């Protein structure tokens, strides 16, 4: 079986991954604003930056995959019947609006930006935009799963569990991407107060992911288990390749092991009895390591699912 023959390979998988990450980031930004107000403004800021960059990467990887990217203006023609037209429309809205949203959260280290963007202090406008970004974020994450689920012929993809899995994974990877930004910039904080704030925010995200990753693990295992028992041969063939076949190393080692089980253990250690543990000194590097593992695991999961769904296609004449 030659995986290179498959129509959708690594580029669509990465486009789907970055779409999920982008949508998840805007969900995290809006959610944090709703839950914690202005206290964790830095989380909203980094989430919006990650959201914009990831959404752009989603378009870039999809364009690299396409044979004629110069015809991209045709992509909106079949809205909303084609999920790609739907996704293109959402991305076309989320990127400019995401950039506007980031302008409400200028970096503290560049004070001149604040004078260039006097509207950044308008909290009411930002809250309204946040509500819109939340809806668009949910649409973008939903698009990444429905673009596969609606290709019914690949029975492995046509499952509500894939929608659930991609949603949880989109939000958990986004949370970890923001955690990674905080971990990297922690050492650039020179005051005790800002270091403490960064530590609080990392802990906040760690707690959120310590709930989401076990849910993702259960959904991923349930998805493969259900597909192994699906009445359609195509779904069983794909699930067998994931569970025992040529994709099993990537699935069990890359996604389940390194992308979920190890981060869950690390997060349990980091969040166990709060921050005041023996791991306090290692909190920042361990948060960074956990974030990288979750992000790589999320990308591996998308690749495995995209490739596995197409395996039955190679068998017909």
């Amino acid at each position, binding site marked *: 079986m030659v995986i290179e023959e498959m*129509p*959708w390979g690594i580029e669509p998988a990465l486009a789907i991954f970055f779409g999920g990450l982008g949508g998840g980031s805007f969900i995290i930004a809006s*959610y944090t604003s709703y*839950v*914690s107000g202005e206290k964790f403004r830095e989380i909203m800021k980094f989430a919006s930056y990650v959201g914009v960059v990831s959404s752009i990467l989603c378009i870039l990887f*999809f364009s690299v*995959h*396409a*044979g*004629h*990217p110069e*015809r*991209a203006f*045709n*992509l*909106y*023609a*079949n809205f*909303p*019947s*084609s*999920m*790609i*037209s739907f996704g*293109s429309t959402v991305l076309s809205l989320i990127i400019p609006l995401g950039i506007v949203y980031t302008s409400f959260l200028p970096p503290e280290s560049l004070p001149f930006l604040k004078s260039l963007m006097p509207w950044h202090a308008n909290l009411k406008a930002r809250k309204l935009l946040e509500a819109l970004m939340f809806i668009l974020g949910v649409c973008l994450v939903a698009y990444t799963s*429905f673009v596969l*689920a*609606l*290709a*019914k*012929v*690949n029975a492995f993809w*046509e*499952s*509500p*569990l894939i*929608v*659930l899995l991609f*949603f*949880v994974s989109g939000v958990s990877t986004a949370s970890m991407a923001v955690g990674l930004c905080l971990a990297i910039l922690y050492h650039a904080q020179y005051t005790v107060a800002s270091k403490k704030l960064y530590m609080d925010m990392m802990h*906040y995200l760690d*707690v*959120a992911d310590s*709930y*989401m990753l076990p*849910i993702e693990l259960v959904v991923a295992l349930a998805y493969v288990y259900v597909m192994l028992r699906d009445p359609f*041969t*195509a779904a069983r063939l794909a699930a067998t390749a994931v569970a025992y076949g040529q994709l099993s190393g990537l699935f069990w080692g890359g996604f389940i092991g390194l992308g979920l089980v190890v981060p869950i253990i690390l997060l349990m250690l980091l969040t166990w009895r*709060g921050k005041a543990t023996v791991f306090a000194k290692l909190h920042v590097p361990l948060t960074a390591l956990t974030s990288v593992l979750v992000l790589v695991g999320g990308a591996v999961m998308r690749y495995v699912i995209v490739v596995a769904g*197409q395996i039955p*296609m190679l068998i*017909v*004449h």
Partner: protein
Amino acid sequence: MDRRSFLKLTAGLGLTTPLLNIFPVRSYDVTSPRAVQKGVKCIFYDGSLCIGCRLCQRACREKWGLKSELTAFHPPSSPRLSSSTWVTIIAKPSRSGGSLFARRSCQHCDEPACVSVCPARAITKYESGPVVIDEKRCFGCQYCVVACPFRVPRLDPELKVARKCTMCYDLVTKGQPPACVRVCPTKALKFGDKNEIVTLAEERVKRVGGYLYGLKEAAGTDVILLLKAPPSELGLPEVEESSYTSPAVLSEVLTARGGLGLFGLALLAFLGFILWRREVIGRERVKEIPR
């Protein structure tokens, strides 16, 4: 959030989920099958008459100027469908000696999945039956390749567009038969109005036995095959009788099978919210305790 608000919101989400089905999708009229509409043309391939001469493959290649792969007769081998092989005759050894034949090409579905998923509207279903890709509009995303239940469209590695059988739409729209039908020496390929072809196919299967493929698959197609062995034994894909168009599948995912998933999703989101909120409140309370 108190318990009452939580229950209200959950019930609200549960009730609004079915409303997602009013999402304005392009609908395909499944209540009046295209078979009864006048002017719809259809190809009938009779596997009991086919001798595997592959003149149809040659006619297709010549008509469209394709660089098709070569075919061998001894031992019989037929090329896989590709961007330059739009029709192929599969030969499989029969248990009683000799060969069993099957035709592989675009089935020109009544409700084509490729048309519904193509973001660029580069694929058109003609009223007379053919499903045709406009290569000048194609973006090369291969969504049609991924979504076709019959696994037909393929990306041309040089042109970077999806290509497949066009049912010689230039001839069909004038009421003339496609190139492959014209050259068939044994009349294994027939062309005509769909309602007449369906009647003929049903009569033939009663007389010679076998399996009809394409009549009900994917909610009906405009290419009907009479096969002497089950389709899967001849290397043809197994296809359900229901529609594969994205609006039809969306409604399947959102209602019967997906309703549960969406409800689970909403429930998990609220669970996450409550746990997260509890953590925040808990930590704030700890801070308030005087030491």
